[in-house]
């Protein structure tokens, strides 16, 4: 009962802190949205056109927006309002940004313009040979049905990301790992504060054994980490349709990683003497481990050496565990090794944190 009281006071204080709530609720979901939108890949490119859009207008793979003049079109491309701009006065001029998406749009536009040129050539040919006017010839060309060349395509190897895997799916698990850990480290500041106020010592003057105080503080940190994880899971599923894979596996991974995060928060709070120290170390560890653990760049893009480093961090294991569930169709059994390693991390962190906090309380 006393363990729950101490744990609850930690959660209660965390929920009362408005700045903390922003980092707990709003920021993780905002980042899921931003990353999802940035890497979503499901939106049609918008091509601005000055003049006749021609075949582009009927092309299902692009969206056409008309512009009055070239300066306006150029400004829109430069500001990123549209993917590319096409000026159709004389020789067509295509304006794109110098990035990969610009190259993709160039291929789409070139293909459409080539189709349009082919149609006009065929029309000219029919008109001159059949002795009919140009418009009639073009309608004859349009009425012709040519069987497309069949290209048989097969896939080989595994796709990095499965069909239908969106940027939201990728961003959500990363943000879950980053924020669960980072916010648990932030709660270390509250533990330092509690100690510096003399509240921890005062708790020890009550008929409450040191082990109960330590357990309560630890449980409080786990509860906050778990709450953070649940907010990202539920929020991203409801708001952005993120799929978390096998529910049992996802729940087990979430709990295991919350234990790791809570343990890290307890250890940091027991080791540091000032809130400034916890802030500095917390951000350094939170972001550093996230980067090495593949939360900034997918593990699949890591070199073999860096992948080895990634799997020395709990983030790497959690990341790979969620990838197994969401990208590789895994279940609870397939993430069992990940769970084992994460629980090992948690056990070590909690043992060290509890030992250090007990010393801080009783000395």
């Amino acid at each position, binding site marked *: 009962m006393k363990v729950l*009281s101490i744990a609850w006071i930690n959660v209660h*204080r965390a929920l009362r802190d408005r700045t903390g709530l922003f980092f707990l609720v709003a920021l993780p979901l905002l980042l899921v949205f931003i990353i999802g939108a940035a890497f979503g890949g499901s939106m049609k490119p918008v091509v601005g056109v000055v003049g006749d859009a021609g075949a582009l207008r009927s092309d299902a793979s692009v969206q056409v927006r008309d512009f009055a003049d070239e300066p306006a079109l150029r400004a829109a491309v430069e500001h990123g309002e549209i993917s590319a701009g096409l000026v159709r006065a004389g020789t067509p001029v295509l304006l794109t940004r110098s990035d990969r998406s610009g190259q993709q749009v160039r291929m789409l536009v070139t293909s459409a313009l080539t189709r349009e040129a082919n149609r006009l050539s065929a029309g000219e040919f029919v008109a001159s040979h059949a002795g009919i006017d140009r418009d009639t010839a073009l309608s004859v060309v349009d009425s012709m049905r040519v069987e497309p060349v069949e290209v048989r395509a097969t896939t080989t190897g595994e796709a990095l990301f499965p069909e239908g895997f969106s940027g939201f799916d990728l961003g959500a698990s990363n943000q879950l790992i980053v924020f669960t850990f980072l916010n648990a480290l932030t709660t270390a500041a509250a533990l330092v504060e509690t100690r510096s*106020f*003399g509240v921890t010592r005062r708790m020890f003057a*009550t*008929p409450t*054994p040191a082990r109960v105080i330590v357990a309560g503080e630890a449980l409080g940190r786990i509860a906050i980490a778990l709450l953070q994880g649940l907010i990202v899971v539920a929020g991203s599923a409801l708001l952005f349709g993120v799929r978390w894979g096998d529910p049992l596996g996802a729940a087990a991974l979430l709990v295991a990683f919350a234990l790791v995060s809570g343990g890290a928060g307890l250890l940091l709070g027991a080791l540091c003497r000032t809130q400034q120290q916890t802030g500095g170390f917390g951000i350094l560890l939170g972001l550093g481990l996230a980067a090495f653990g593949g939360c900034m760049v997918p593990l699949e893009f890591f070199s073999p050496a860096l992948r080895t480093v990634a799997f020395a961090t709990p983030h790497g294991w959690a990341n790979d565990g969620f990838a197994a569930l969401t990208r590789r169709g895994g279940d609870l059994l397939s993430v069992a090794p990940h769970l084992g390693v994460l629980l090992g991390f948690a056990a070590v962190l909690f043992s060290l944190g509890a030992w250090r906090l007990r010393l801080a309380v*009783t000395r």
Partner: protein
Amino acid sequence: MTVLSCSGLRRRFGDVLAVDDVSFTIAEGETYGLLGPNGAGKTTTISMITGVLERDAGEVVVDGVPMSPDAVAAKRLVGYVPQELALYPDLTGRENLRFFASLYGAGRRRVDEVLEVVGLADRAGDLAREYSGGMKRRLNVAIGLLHEPRLLVLDEPTAGVDPQSRNQIMENVRALAAEGMAILYTTHYMEEAERLCDRVGVIDSGRLIAEGTRRELVERLGERDRISLQLDGDLSHAATVLGAIPAVRGLAPHGHGLELVVDDARECLPVVLSAISTNGAVVRSVEVTEPNLETVFLHLTGKALRE
């Protein structure tokens, strides 16, 4: 009946012997003042008595139950009010009390009672950080009262508070002692110790160098109360009359009057004034000087209490 008995307390931090062979007792309903300059060992002594600090040697017994850091039963008997404001500023007064009540096993009704006792009932729903310094101190005291302890330990409970809150805290302490609670009180304010404490112990460099009531300590130093009288009339006749009073231990001319050395100025003064008036002299002024704890402290430690 003895509520607190500590004997031979010793604690060392590295090379520093913070507390050395400290022994004293506190009886039911007694207020004991532990006085000493900064760094004298008061807080270390209190920490061992409340069971938050392991001792190297010695024994602490509260109401017959031995105290140690693991002694849950003994801790149930002690209320601790630390020097620092050991409470959560981002919780309300009531939330702070409820939290500690859950650790002491006290009920919600007791929380409301304690809020009334310390005069915070009407501000119980406000965040502690919005309280004035005095209100925070009263909340700090309230936490120590939640479980109606047999021994209340107050470590500088009035440091930096306004006179109104200080008076309220002192009145609370007096009332609790009257109800039979044993109280261990440390303070930097000598007048508080003189007003509240039945006995005081003077601690310096980790050792309890003197102990007793104010009068006992004063007498041990050879100091006595003095009454200075300015008189109109026959001084030699007055001196003869006053010298015959048993409580008057000495007498000397002093300006246009006499200075008397007496056992207890407050008890003796009415007898002295009566003797003078019945012998035809007229008293123009009276000045009573009582050697106080400040004098005792300065004499014993060579330092003022606030050093």
